[in-house]
């Protein structure tokens, strides 16, 4: 049968962005612009110790000498870094709330609208008793507005708080690990982040502890012309275990907003970190106006033997994405995994993938990447598998599939492999397919409407990744894809 792409395209045209509302609260923002003074001011506002100010200043000075990377398969106008405000905090947060009761009710309302209950009793209300509890940290513009279930976590010995709080309460730990996975000079955006990061989450799971619940952080950019530069640091000591999820949304605005986060994970001997992301930043409208620029450096260090770091991401938002969650497999027998679903629609562009750096012996990595492009969306998978000289018996398997919806979108695959040990086995499989009229017609001839058929086919395509997500987030991710592909039929 002849394909009739225009029809499928209309299906995915009218994507609605449900999280696009703006919260009207007074905020305390630093005027736009970046200089050493601004870096000092951020550090002072947060009453940081001297060593951290030094870290920021070193990063800032290095950043001044760096150039924005241009190798990615994305196009966007030059960003004016002097037009961005590097710090914005809701005003009522100025004296750091002691509990959620001190938090501006409008903020709580914002999160309720997003379906993220901030109060523990609300989280528990009406919930089946044996459903796993989820502790949530919430970052609004640049500031963490509260973490739930702290007490229960503390009893288990787990620290879960904002990174600002960690700097105050656990400075030795932060100092020991910050910047050890993503050095301040790593790349343009990581340096920028190191200079101006404002908040983010901190997790520390001590030796032998399995974190008793899922941990989760929700990020939201609200303020106009504000960049969000959060920094997340997760440490699992020997035999410790944690599953962590981040979710992101932003209001619908005409101008672009910059998000340049850094995430560092450290897994010691036999430790396991599972990091899941459901990213739904505002993607811009169908003409490509507005939306978030998402330039993120995420890296996990399997420092200990038999440690494991697993990245799972579902990316449906952002105007431009540049992101390669990576694993450094340093410890012998360590394992790195990357499971990704990325959807680009309208004028969205994504250049995403992963890096697996095999240094230790018998290290294993698995990459499953599912890219979906619709409308005029452009997507590139960029993956590096590097096997060092000493990585005897290293193995990698990469599966990289692209699904095209309509004929104006594109998918590109750039796999890089560098193998320096002859015993390594590196496998790569890639497919590109189209949702065909024939698949749609098959579903419709059985009574399944067009929209449901598209979302069913897409979900089927993503199945290998969804099954890696924690249960309740898998449901969330499926819904998100469905909404993202919602459109007017006929």
């Amino acid at each position, binding site marked *: 049968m002849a394909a009739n792409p225009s029809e499928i395209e209309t299906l995915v045209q009218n994507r609605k962005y449900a999280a696009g509302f703006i919260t009207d609260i007074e905020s305390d923002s630093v005027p736009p612009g970046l200089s050493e003074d601004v870096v000092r001011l951020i550090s002072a506002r947060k009453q940081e110790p001297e060593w951290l100010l030094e870290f920021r200043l070193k990063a800032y000075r290095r950043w001044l000498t760096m150039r924005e990377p241009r190798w990615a398969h994305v196009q966007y106008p030059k960003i004016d870094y002097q037009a961005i405000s590097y710090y914005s905090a809701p005003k009522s947060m100025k004296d750091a709330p002691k509990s959620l009761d001190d938090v501006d009710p409008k903020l709580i309302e914002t999160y309720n609208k997003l379906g993220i209950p901030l109060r523990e009793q609300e989280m528990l209300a009406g919930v089946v008793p044996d459903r796993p509890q989820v502790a949530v940290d919430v970052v609004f513009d640049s500031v963490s507005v509260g973490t739930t279930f702290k007490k229960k976590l503390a009893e288990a010995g787990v620290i879960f708080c904002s990174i600002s709080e960690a700097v105050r309460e656990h400075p030795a730990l932060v100092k020991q690990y910050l910047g050890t996975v993503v050095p301040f000079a790593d790349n343009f955006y990581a340096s920028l982040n190191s200079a101006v990061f404002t908040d983010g989450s901190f997790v520390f799971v001590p030796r032998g502890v399995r974190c008793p619940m899922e941990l989760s952080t929700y990020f939201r950019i609200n303020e106009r012309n504000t960049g969000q530069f959060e920094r997340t640091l997760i440490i699992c000591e020997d035999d410790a275990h944690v599953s962590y999820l981040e979710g992101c949304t932003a209001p619908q605005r005409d101008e672009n907003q910059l998000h340049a986060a850094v995430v560092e994970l450290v897994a010691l001997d036999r430790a396991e970190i599972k990091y899941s992301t459901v990213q739904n930043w505002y993607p811009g409208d169908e003409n490509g106006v507005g939306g978030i620029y998402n330039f993120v450096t995420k890296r996990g260090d399997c420092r200990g033997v038999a440690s494991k770091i697993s990245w799972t991401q579902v990316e449906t938002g952002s105007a431009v994405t540049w992101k390669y969650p990576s694993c450094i497999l340093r410890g012998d027998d360590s394992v790195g995994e990357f499971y990704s679903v990325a959807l680009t629609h309208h004028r969205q562009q994504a250049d995403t993938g992963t890096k697996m750096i095999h240094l230790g012996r018998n290290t294993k990595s698995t990459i499953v990447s599912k890219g979906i492009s619709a409308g005029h969306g452009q997507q590139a998978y960029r993956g590096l598998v590097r096997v060092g000289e000493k990585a005897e018996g290293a193995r990698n398997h990469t599966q990289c599939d692209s699904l095209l919806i309509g004929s104006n979108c594109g998918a590109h695959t750039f796999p890089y492999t560098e193998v320096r040990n002859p015993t390594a086995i590196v496998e790569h499989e890639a497919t590109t397919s189209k949702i065909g009229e024939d698949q749609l017609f098959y*579903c419709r001839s059985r009574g399944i409407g067009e929209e*449901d058929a598209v979302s*069913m086919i897409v979900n089927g395509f993503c199945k290998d990744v969804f099954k890696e997500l924690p249960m309740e987030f898998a449901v969330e991710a499926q819904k998100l894809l469905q909404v993202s592909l919602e459109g007017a039929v006929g």
Partner: protein
Amino acid sequence: MTKLLEIENLHARIGDNEILKGLDLSVGAGEIHAIMGPNGAGKSTLSKVLAGAEDYVVTSGTIRYQGQDIAEQSAEQRAAHGIFMGFQYPVEIPGVSNMMFLKAAVNAQRKERGEPEMAANDFLAWVRHRVKQMKMDPAMLSRGVNQGFSGGEKKRNEILQMLVLEPKLMVLDETDSGLDIDALKIVSDGINAMRSPERATILVTHYQRLLDYVQPDFVHVLAAGRIVKSGGPELARELEEKGYGWLQAA
């Protein structure tokens, strides 16, 4: 009495290619019609046009189903009202389990007809019953729709879907092609099981052997976009013997 299906002077094209050129066919409830004809004659085209494929344009003529002109009905509406097409080349949908697919189909059809969804347990029992009837391995239910199925397994899966959905008008496009001898028997049993005074079946086939198991009431020859000859079961045997050449010459 109105016929279940009445096709009059049907013209349909794809792109600039006119495929159906004035086709007439009328099928009464309770009847089984076999359509045979040379490759490229338009048999699959007819099947897809009946099922509501939108890449074919009906340029003139009418299709009446249960007395109503269905020109304006979408494929999914036709399905909900009981038109089922068994595909000559069933499509694969990776990652969507057969079970999920069947459930989505059944419930979508019920919704369209204003009926409540089927209870999960009832549905499961119903599907299992049909799987057994088709002598299929129940494990296939958790596999992707036709994903990695052999040619014959795909055809059998078409009949399974038909049995689960219980349509009124079944248009089976070469369901017998690619089946081994045992599978042909099972598929034929499935088709016969659906035989009833309210239902009708159109079998598109190239071979007499299917018609040995499923006795047609009428046999038609479709050539160059039209029904050029109709008769009883004996016509199929005649065709098997002589081919189609003598018809075109006539």
